[in-house]
C-alpha cells in the first residue's frame, strides 16, 4: 500500500516532467512523449484497480495447490483453473497457449510436436498429429461443457463468455497462415454451423473481423482491429 502511494507520487511527477520535455523536443518526437504520457495515465488506472483488488473478497480455492507434472497431464487442470477464475470473477480474460512444451511423448508418441507439425505428408506423422490434436480438442470440449454447467446470474457462464480456439496456421507443413481452423463457442452467438467466408477478392473476410465483432459485443467501442475490413457477420 505504501508502495502504491509512492508510485502514485512518482507518476504525478514524471507526467509533469514529460509535459515540460514535450515542449522542447522536435516535432518527430512529440508522438513518442505522448505515448509515454498516455502510458503513465494508464498506470494510474491500474493502481486504482490494484487498490480495489486488495479489498475485493477472494474466493476460497476448492483444492490444494497442485504441483506441475507436464503440459499434457496438466491440460485439464489448466482448463479447470480458467473455469474457476471466470466463475469467481477473479478475471474476465484468460489465454492458454499450447506450444512447444506440449510434449507428445507424454501421450506415448515418440516424435516432438514441432517435428510432427512439419509432417512432410508422412502418414505415420499425420496419425500422431491427429492423435495429439484429438486429445487437445477433447479437453477443450470438456471445458466448454463445464462453462455451460456453471451459472452466471440468469444465464450460464458459457453464454456470457466468448471462447475461441484455433491455430495460427492453416497448414503447418507448408507454413500456410491462411484458412485457419477456428472454433468459436459461447458468448451469446448463434452456433451449430460451419461458416466459410470469402477468402479472396474485395469481399474477403479476415479473421480480424471476428475479433472486432467480439470486442464490440464486449462493449469496446472500436470498429477495427489489425487487418480487419469490417465486422464478421
Amino acid at each position: 500500500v505504501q508502495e502504491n502511494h509512492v508510485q502514485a507520487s512518482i507518476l504525478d511527477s514524471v507526467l509533469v516532467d514529460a509535459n515540460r520535455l514535450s515542449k522542447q523536443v522536435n516535432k518527430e518526437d512529440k508522438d513518442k512523449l505522448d505515448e509515454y504520457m498516455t502510458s503513465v495515465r494508464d498506470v494510474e488506472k491500474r493502481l486504482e484497480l490494484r487498490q480495489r483488488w486488495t479489498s475485493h473478497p477472494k474466493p476460497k480455492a476448492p483444492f490444494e495447490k497442485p504441483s506441475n507434472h507436464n503440459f499434457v497431464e496438466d491440460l485439464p487442470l489448466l482448463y479447470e483453473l480458467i473455469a474457476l477464475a471466470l466463475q469467481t470473477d477473479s478475471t474476465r480474460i484468460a489465454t492458454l497457449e499450447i506450444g512447444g512444451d506440449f510434449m507428445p511423448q507424454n501421450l506415448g508418441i515418440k516424435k516432438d510436436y514441432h517435428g510432427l507439425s512439419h509432417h512432410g505428408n508422412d502418414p505415420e506423422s499425420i496419425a500422431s498429429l491427429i492423435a495429439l490434436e484429438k486429445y487437445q480438442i477433447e479437453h477443450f470440449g470438456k471445458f466448454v461443457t463445464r462453462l455451460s454447467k456453471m451459472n452466471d446470474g440468469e444465464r450460464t457462464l458459457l453464454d456470457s463468455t466468448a471462447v475461441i480456439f484455433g491455430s495460427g496456421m492453416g497448414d503447418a507443413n507448408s507454413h500456410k497462415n491462411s484458412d485457419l481452423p477456428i472454433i468459436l463457442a459461447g458468448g451469446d452467438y448463434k452456433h451449430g454451423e460451419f461458416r466459410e467466408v470469402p477468402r479472396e477478392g474485395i469481399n474477403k473476410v479476415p479473421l480480424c473481423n471476428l475479433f472486432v465483432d467480439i470486442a464490440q459485443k464486449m462493449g469496446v467501442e472500436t470498429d477495427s482491429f489489425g487487418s480487419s475490413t469490417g465486422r464478421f457477420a
Partner: protein
Amino acid sequence: MRVALFFSVASLATAAGDNPKLVQQFLGKYCMECHDADVQKGDRSFEGFTLPLHSTESLIEARDIIDQLTLKEMPPKKADQPKDDERLAMIRALRDGSATAFRKIQSTGSRTVMRRLSSREYENSLATLFGRRVDTLGLTADFPKEKTSEHMDTIGKTLVTSGFLVDQYFQAANRLIETRLGKPATEPKNWHFDSHFVQYEELEGSHKSAFNFRYLNIYEQPNSDTRQGGYAHIQDFLKGVPVSGLYDVEVEAQAMHRDTHYDPKIFGIDFSEPFILGLVPGDITKGHIHYPQPIEPILATTTLPDDKPAVKKFRVWLEAGQTLRFIFPNGPYESRAAVVTINQRYKDEFKGEIGRSGVGRAHILREGKLPHIRISDIKINGPVPEEGGSAEEIAVFGKGGFQVDHALDQLNAFAEKAYRRPLADADRQPIRAIYEKRIAEKATPRQAALDALKLILCSPSFLYLSEITEESAKALRPYDLASRLSFALWATPPDEALLASAKSGEITEDAELRKQVERMIADERISGFVNGFLDSWLNLRDLGSQPPPRETSLSYYAEDLPSSMKSEVRMFFRDLLKNNGSVAQFIDCEHTFVDKKLAKLYNLPEQKTLRLADGFQKVSLKGNKQRGGLLGMAGVLTVSANGVETTPVTRGVWVSENILGIAPPPPPDVVPAIDADVSGATTIRERLAKHRADNACAECHRKIDPLGFSLETFDPIGRWRITYPRPNGNKSAAPKNAKAPEPTKEKGKENEKGKSEAKPAAPKKEQPPAPKIDSSGEFPSGETYTDFASFKKVISTTREDLFTRHLIRQFLTYTTGRHMELADDYVIDQLQEKVKQQGLGLKTLMVECLMSEVFRSR
C-alpha cells in the same frame, strides 16, 4: 578536412549534360518494349521516367533500374543485350541523377525518432549505475518482448511504450533499490549441510535406500526433457539467504563413474571431458525448485576430479530469498531414460535381488556405474562485508555512502549520471519535491532518498534518448552524440571519458570523435555492440526458436549447440574487427572459430585435438570446401531453416535479404504453397521446378532459388550432407478413427515408458534410396556454380559491392536507431566507395560510418 573531401567527390561526375538524352535512348532501345504504358510488365512502366528526377517514386525507380542492370537481370537473357559500356553509362547517369535529386529532397525525413532504451540497454544502464550485475534480479523478466523491425531492436519508432511497461519500470526500480540499498547491514552467518539431502520426489525412494540422503546427486544436464535430477537443491536451505550479498561457498564434490563401461550412446555426452559443476540461484517462490527458472544466471563453474572428492570454493552473489542450486552442464541427457536402458542391457551384471520392475536407480547406485556428480558437504558463509560500504552504496551515493546533510546533492549527482547530461533547474525541482514530500510524510531521510531514486529511474530523461536540437539544425549536440555513440558501441550509458569529451564539446570535432571511437572499439565492452548487432543483422536472436527433432539432432540439445553456434559468429566478427580484416571475409574465408562441439559438427580434424576446456580456437579452413564465411556457419544455416527441413526458397530469401540487401517481394496470395513431402517421390528441386514453370512464379524464384540451392548440402542445423534424409517407405494411410490417447502418467511409469522407447524399430520393407542433393545453380545474370564453394566464388566476384553496401546500411540502421531511407543512399554509396578504397577493413567501415553525417545527425 575529411568532411569537405566527402562532399566534393560527388560533384565530380556530373559533368555530362546530355544524361537525360542518354537515359531516354537506353530506355527506348532496351526497356520500353515491355515496360511502356500498355504492357507494364512486372507493374513497371517507364513512360514518364525522365531526368532530372523529381519525386521519391522516381528515385525508387532509378534505384530499381540500377539494381537490375548491375545484376544483369534485365533486360532478360532472350532479349537484346546492351553493350557493357552502354550499360555502365546508363548506370552512371542514373546514379548522378539520383545524387542531384537526393540533395534536393535531403532536408525531409531521415531523422531518428526519439527512442527509449531497449530492455537490454535498460538493464545494462542499471548495472552501470549501481556498480554491480543486476541479472540475478531478473528485472526485465516480465517486460513485454521487445518489438523488432527487420530484426533490429534499436529502432525508435518500433520501441513502443505501454502502461504495462511503465508500471514495470516502477516495479523494477522499486525492487532493485529496496533489495540492494534498502536492507539494514547484516552480520555474516554460517550454514553447514552434510546430510538430509532430500531431492526431486522421484529420486526419494532410491536415495533413501542407497545412502539415506547422505549425498546430493546430479544426474543430467539442466535442459533435459524428462526431468530427473538436473537441479540439485539444498532441502534444508529452501528459503535461501536473508539479504542480498556476496556469499562464500565451499562444496565437497566428486565426478562419479566417468569411466563407466556402459555404452556412451545411452548418455549422449563426451566422456573424455571432465565433469563440470555449476552454481545457479533458485527461488521457491518463482517456480519448481527442480525445474529451470526465469532468473538463472550461472554464478560459477568448476571441473571436478574423478578419483576422490575435492573441496571447491566460490564467492557468489545471491539476492535476498535466493537459495543455491547445483547443475551438471555437460551431464548426460535424460537420466530417466538412461536408467531404463541400463536395466534392459546390463541387468545380468547385478548381483542383489532384482525386483519385479527390474534394476532400478538405487540398485545401480549401489552396484553399478551410473555417471553422475556427487556432492557430500556444503558450507555457506555471508554476506561477506565489503570494505567502505557496498558497491551499490558507493556507486549511487558516492564515497562514504548516503549522507543526510548532502542528500539532495547526492541525488542530483546520481540523476546527472542517469540522464547522461548536466541537470537544469527543472530537473532538480521534482527530485527535491519528492524528497521533501516523503520527509513530510514521516519517512526517514534514507527512505526518502531511495524513493527519489525511484523517481529518477522512471523519468523520461532516463528512459529515453531525447535528442533535442534547434528545429532547423541536424547535427547532434555533444551530450546526445556521446549517448548515441555509447549505446551504439557498448549498449551502455557513456563513461566518464565520453562525458568529459561531451562537456568540453570536443566530441563533435572529427579528430576527437575518431579518437573516442577507436578507444571504444578497443574496449572489452564492444561485445555489447557485437552481440546486439549480430542478433539484429543476422537475426541470431532467434536461434533456438525452431527446435529440430530430438531423434535426428540429439547433440543440438545434449551439447547445447545453439550457444556454440552464436559464439562462432561473434568470435569471427570480433577477430575481423580487431585486425581490421576485409569484410569480404564474411562471404568467404579460410579460417573460422570453433570449440570442440562445432569441430565435431563440422567434421574438422580439430575434433580430435581440441578439449572442451580450450573453448574457441581459430582454425584454418584451407582447402575445406564445406565451410568458410558466414554461409558456412551453423548459426546462420540453422536460423535460415525451420529446424525440421530446409528449402532453397527460405534460405535463398534469407541470403537475399541479409547478405545482399535485396528484399524479394512477398509471395502473392493466389500462389499455392510448396508443400513439404517426405515420400521421396520428388525432391524439393523438382517441386520448385514445377512451381517455376509458371511465369509469374518464375519472375521471383529465378532470383531467389539460385541463392538457396547451394545451401541444400547443409541440413537444418548446418551439418554437411550429400543426400536428403531417406524417405519413409511406409505408404499406408493414416488411421481414420484414431482415439485420443491417455497421457502416460509420469510417476512410477519409468519402466513402461522406457520399454517403448528402446524397442528396436521394425525393419522397413524395401527402403527406397536416399535422394542425392544437387547443389548446382544458375543466377539470372548467367553465372553458374556447381556447389557451395563455387557459389561463394560467384558472390565474391560479382556481388561484393552489394554486400558491403548492405552491411553499411545495416550498421547505420542499428547505430542510429532508424531505418535508412532513400535520401541516405547517397551517403551510403560514398561510404562504400571510401571503405573500398581503404581495403574493406571492418574497423575502417565502422569508423567511417560513425564519422559520417548520417550517424552524427538527429
